[in-house]
């Protein structure tokens, strides 16, 4: 059997999709539908983010006919989406484009698959919006009427035989370009924070509607700057609606994000202060300043000191880890110390004081670590 490979025309389109799609799209699996050459991969499951969840769509190319347009198999619960695509969605113009894209397919144009997926996802968004709009629930109708104008809001109606009907909203928060707030930002995808709001549907007999389920979500790369797990959501008061709730949340969130951005500089000053005692860092994260590594020596014993700095710095002290440059374990990897967090620290100290105290602590700790390294090496 030959090695597995994707035919060049298909792989060009896939690569373009992965690298240029505005959201983080992944290929979950690839396989071959070819009878005689099972190494030619022409089928893929794409995982496309939607409404803080994922859509799994199978893209079916035919390696026997590499010039022809691919076919798409949607998720099992989206059978009705077909006719929505066929009729071109709500707006006529929108529909045409998705069909046009397929009817004059040009396999040599690497952008085609991305355009197709983008158009189908847009259609899916309006399809779900229509489904949610058809739900007979007064409270939901009211919520939709007040927030539907928010840009980028996504909705999803989930129903199944064994699940209660629910309507999910993913509301993008903060009208800020987070990528622009970080100097030298390496993020390829636009970072966003979303609030997920989940309403149960159709419990008409409930007199006082319960609070919806709320959860914050964010694009994955954002957590190097700001951890949404640390955000405490304000309480949802009885009889509240999203339009009332969101401004408060956004206000407090904006403060926290701005603070997180300003903390980058605090971390940078700390790393600069460390350089006075330890010398130039061997390695440091120049954008978010979340980690730095210094070379240190205690007599003839040389070792590396890794600093892991959390987004909560200076409230949370950095985690240290020592790594010997002279001792290897039985697998040949350098011996490392466990994470060290027990050392003198106060968030109120000046960065230079923090650096001095850590240096003093390490003078002692280096001897312990050297002894541990020697013992560990003697054992094997």
């Amino acid at each position, binding site marked *: 059997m030959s090695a597995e490979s994707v035919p060049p025309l298909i792989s060009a389109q896939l690569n373009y999709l992965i690298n240029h799609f505005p959201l983080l799209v992944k290929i979950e699996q690839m396989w071959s539908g070819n009878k005689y050459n099972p190494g030619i991969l022409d089928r893929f499951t794409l995982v496309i983010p939607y409404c803080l969840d994922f859509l799994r769509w199978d893209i079916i190319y035919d390696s026997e006919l590499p010039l022809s347009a691919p076919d*798409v198999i949607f998720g099992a619960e989206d059978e009705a989406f077909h006719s929505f695509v066929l009729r071109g969605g709500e707006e006529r113009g929108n529909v045409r484009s998705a069909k046009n894209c397929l009817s004059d397919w040009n396999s040599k144009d690497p952008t085609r698959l991305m355009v197709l997926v983008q158009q189908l996802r847009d259609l899916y968004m309006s399809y779900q919006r229509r489904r949610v709009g058809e739900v007979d629930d007064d409270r939901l109708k009211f919520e939709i009427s007040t927030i539907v104008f928010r840009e980028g809001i996504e909705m999803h109606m989930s129903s199944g035989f064994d699940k209660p009907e629910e309507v999910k909203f993913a509301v993008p928060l903060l009208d800020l370009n987070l990528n622009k707030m970080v100097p030298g930002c390496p993020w390829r995808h636009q970072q966003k924070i979303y609030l997920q709001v989940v309403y149960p549907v159709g419990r008409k007999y409930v007199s006082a509607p319960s609070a919806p389920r709320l959860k914050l979500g964010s694009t994955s790369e954002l957590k190097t700057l700001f951890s949404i797990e640390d955000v405490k959501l304000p309480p949802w008061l009885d009889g509240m609606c999203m339009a009332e709730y969101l401004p408060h949340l956004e206000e407090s969130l904006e403060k926290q994000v701005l603070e997180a951005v300003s903390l980058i500089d605090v971390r940078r000053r700390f790393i600069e202060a460390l350089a006075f005692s330890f010398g130039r860092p061997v390695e440091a994260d120049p954008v978010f300043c979340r980690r730095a590594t210094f070379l240190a020596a205690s007599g003839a014993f040389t070792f590396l000191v890794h600093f892991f700095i959390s987004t909560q710095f200076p409230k949370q002290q950095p985690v240290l880890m020592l790594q010997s440059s002279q001792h290897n374990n039985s697998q040949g990897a350098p011996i490392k110390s466990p994470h060290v967090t027990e050392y003198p620290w106060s968030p109120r100290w000046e960065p230079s004081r923090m650096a001095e105290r850590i240096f003093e602590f390490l003078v002692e700790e280096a001897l312990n670590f050297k002894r541990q390294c020697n013992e560990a090496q003697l054992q094997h």
Partner: protein
Amino acid sequence: MDDLPLHKIAISGPTLASMIQRFASSPGTVDGLLFGHVTHITPSNLSDDSSPSDSSTHVVATITGFLCSGTTHSFYDSCGLVEPLSLRRLVGDLENQHSLIGWFSGRRKTNLRPSLREFSVTASLACNTHLSFPVRNALSPTNLAPCVFLLIASPSQDQTIHTHEYRAYQFRTSMDSFEPKSIDIVNIGPAFRGHYGSFSPNSPFPILPCELGTSPMSEDQNDDCLGRMKQVSKDQSDLDMCAEGFDVGILNRLMGSEAVNYTAGLENLYSKMLIKLESLSRLVEKSSAKVLEQFSCVN
């Protein structure tokens, strides 16, 4: 146009088997057309239950034949719109004998769910009013467009067991959606005798083309061609000798009401053939024993 809901879709075992075989032996995705008829059936209710049942009449689509294009996109474009010219070319004069009731798609290693294109093709086919055909035995004259879709797929995961899955759908133009339908496989055998009561095959025996392999234009190969024709007619006469007057044409009497009279005759022919085969194998046995004897003598 009327949009009658089908009760089920019936297909004979051999037709389904040969459809799956065509799919399994093709290198990639295949599609094709389904022919047959749609019939209104009033089932004989033998129970003395007098409760009124609204399901007293059934509409059943019966697939009697199919045409496999051997490839994909054979009568539609890549966004799933039916191309009338290609369709007419594909159907040829078959439609004079049968009604086009739908189409099928066979794709390897995919989920058994209709794809975007399959949905569009079916919708486009069902919109073609000039393709609609009359429903047989209908209480009032009713026409139905080609709305049957049969999906054949092999599972994407399983590598060890060779399986093919299939599912049938009816496209409902009024609801713009697929409705899954049960497939009733009509087979020969005691368990299915009941089915045959209401099953009326109408497809003639398929033409068995005798390919001579040469075009009439090439003069040089004429001798060769004649030789082959002689061979073919000799083979045929050999076959006829075995069949003792039973020619292929008679076989189609085996279906339908007069079948009983002919089965006895055919069984007789088979038992005679078996006896001949047995004596032949005995001859072979004896002669190979002799050969073995001579062989051991030489050694």
